[in-house]
């Protein structure tokens, strides 16, 4: 689950991490009221679950509440890299003396969390790492002992954090790591982490992404669902289906993530494009097939459907019977190609031959047929 900036900051504040004073607004009028309440210069920031909003014009610093209203109006009408802006965060403008970068994320290759600290804040950290590697300190954390004080200090020294700030910075880092652990996060990032004129360290921006597998531990978490952007993806989520909407015209149903991904690749190889990814899992259970097919049939982009199933422990003749009973109950308005492979595939195909479904023996033949039918 991805957290919008203000959602992440709420979590930070609850963990004792200093954040700027501010509130979120859904209308320009609300933005104005918040700016009036805060008084003085404020920042108006688009709340979208994606980076690069500054470059896109989604952030404005203004001097008055009237200006805040005007800018909020403009930003709320924007779409940033495909995400419409529904909310803006209005915050008191900060008196920034220096900017740092602080992040904790999961390093897949090392199978451990990694703490990243840099004294070059406010910029794209990957760019800084590429151009000034000496300014970026990375410290890997052994999951069995957690983050230790010596590592925090090491990160600060290597990132060239000024000596007088190290103690406060260390406390800040420890709090952020605690959030990372407690929230089951796969990313917590503060960029910039600012040193204010008052000498205080503060999270000026905030980004957080948590592990969906651990959602049962965080029933009240408030974030946005990254995988459910399209209405059809939202519907799939409700049905418990592993589905991704794509921009082609051939609807895909298959069992196993690798098999379905390869099916998408084969469609493209034969000159078509897949309309979706849908993995119905092992055994092709009737209820799941039915939900999956009805979802795909409700997609107006779909011009043909390819059902690609490998029968392993579940035999293909059983899969075929299941498919037939499901399809007979449904209103099917586009051509369907079925490819069965594996245990008792021939028997399965023989059963389907009596229906109006097109069958295919090989992966290639199936993909080719589905692409041709989508064009017809």
């Amino acid at each position, binding site marked *: 689950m991805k957290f919008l900036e203000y959602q992440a900051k709420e979590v930070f504040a609850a963990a004792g991490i200093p954040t700027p004073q501010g509130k979120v607004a859904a209308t320009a009028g609300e933005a104005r009221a918040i700016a009036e309440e805060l008084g003085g210069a404020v920042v108006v920031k688009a709340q979208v679950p994606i980076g690069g909003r500054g470059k896109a014009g989604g952030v404005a610093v203004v001097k008055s509440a009237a200006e805040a209203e005007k800018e909020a109006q403009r930003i709320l009408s924007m779409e940033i890299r495909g995400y419409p802006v529904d909310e803006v965060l209005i915050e008191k403008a900060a008196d920034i003396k220096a900017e740092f970068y602080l992040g904790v994320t999961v390093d897949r290759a090392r199978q*451990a*969390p990694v703490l990243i600290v840099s004294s070059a804040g406010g910029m794209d950290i990957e760019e800084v790492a590429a151009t000034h590697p000496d300014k970026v300190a990375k410290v890997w954390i052994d999951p069995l002992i957690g983050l230790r004080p010596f590592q925090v200090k090491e990160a600060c020294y290597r990132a060239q954090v000024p000596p007088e700030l190290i103690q406060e910075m260390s406390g800040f880092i420890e709090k952020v790591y605690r959030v990372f652990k407690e929230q*089951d996060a796969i990313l917590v990032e503060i960029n910039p982490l600012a040193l204010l004129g008052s000498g205080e360290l503060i999270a000026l921006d905030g980004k957080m992404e948590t*592990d969906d597998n651990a959602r049962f531990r965080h029933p009240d978490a408030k974030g946005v669902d990254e995988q459910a952007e399209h209405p059809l993806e939202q519907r799939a989520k409700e049905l418990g289906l*592993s589905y991704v909407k794509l921009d082609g015209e051939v609807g895909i149903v298959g069992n*196993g*993530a690798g098999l379905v991904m390869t099916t998408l690749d084969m469609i493209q190889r034969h000159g078509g494009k897949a309309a979706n990814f849908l993995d119905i899992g092992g055994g092709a259970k009737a209820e799941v097939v039915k939900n999956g097919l009805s979802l795909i049939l409700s997609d107006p982009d779909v011009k043909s459907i390819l059902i690609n199933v490998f029968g392993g422990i579940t035999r293909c003749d059983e899969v075929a019977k299941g498919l037939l009973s499901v399809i007979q109950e449904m209103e099917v308005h586009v051509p369907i190609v079925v490819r069965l*492979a594996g245990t008792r595939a021939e028997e399965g195909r023989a059963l389907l031959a009596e229906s109006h479904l097109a069958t295919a023996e090989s*992966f290639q033949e199936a993909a080719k047929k589905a692409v041709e039918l989508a064009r017809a």
Partner: protein
Amino acid sequence: MSILVNNKTRLLVQGITGREGAFHTKQMLAYGTQVVAGVTPGKAGESVEGVPVYNTVREAVDKHGVNTSIIFVPPRFAADAALEAIDAGIELVVCITEWIPVHEMMEVTAYARAKGTRLVGPNCPGVISPGEALVGILPGGIFKPGPVGLVSRSGTLTYEVVNELTTRGIGQSTCVGIGGDPIIGTRFIDVLRLFEEDPQTEVIVMIGEIGGSDEEEAAEYIKTMKKPVVGFISGRTAPPGKRMGHAGAIISGNTGTAESKIRALTAANVPVADTINEIVDLVEQRLK
């Protein structure tokens, strides 16, 4: 010979009384695997398909000389089950369970390394050495003994390739499903090392997919190998930023793309097949 599992495997099934655990215990026994014990806390004294059930892994290990464990425990409790198996000193732990939290998996993989246990998975179909032992949920009927070692992040793609291999008369030494999660116990490079040392294995098939950089890391090792490797990468047309079914199958920024993996494999002189049939063609050529 073969790798990881064989006729000396003495298997413990964790979560044996559950629906999946019981079903696959039956399948594994039917394949000829020595399933010697099961564990479900609170169910000691029961039996599943004639296999005695214990409350703890320690007890099962003490009584039956277990050397391998397979986990069918639900996601919330699976990491704890894996830690229990590692703690009991079991050499090989195969974790089938999907949806285990990432933070717990980082702890489990670190503990396995510390204790010298080999963990396969999670979110994997398991391991089979055809004709010797099945430790997993793979459909045993499509496999046959032979010279091809296979390692894959995907279950059903493994079945597709094996089905085609077997249909064309080519058998397999061992097939290892390493799992579709971002944090997994055994990676491509680990299995390639084992195949390189295994006298039965002559050609290796490696089935990768988008996400992470394990294929790139494996490619570096392949440059030093004597045995031929044939590659396949799925997800060439997957959009960035979307998880394609597997938790680990996601392109983030510039990392994890199919192009990067294909480039790395090509640089290691590994032919990367475009289709399943081509994988088998390439294997056939290398066996001759």
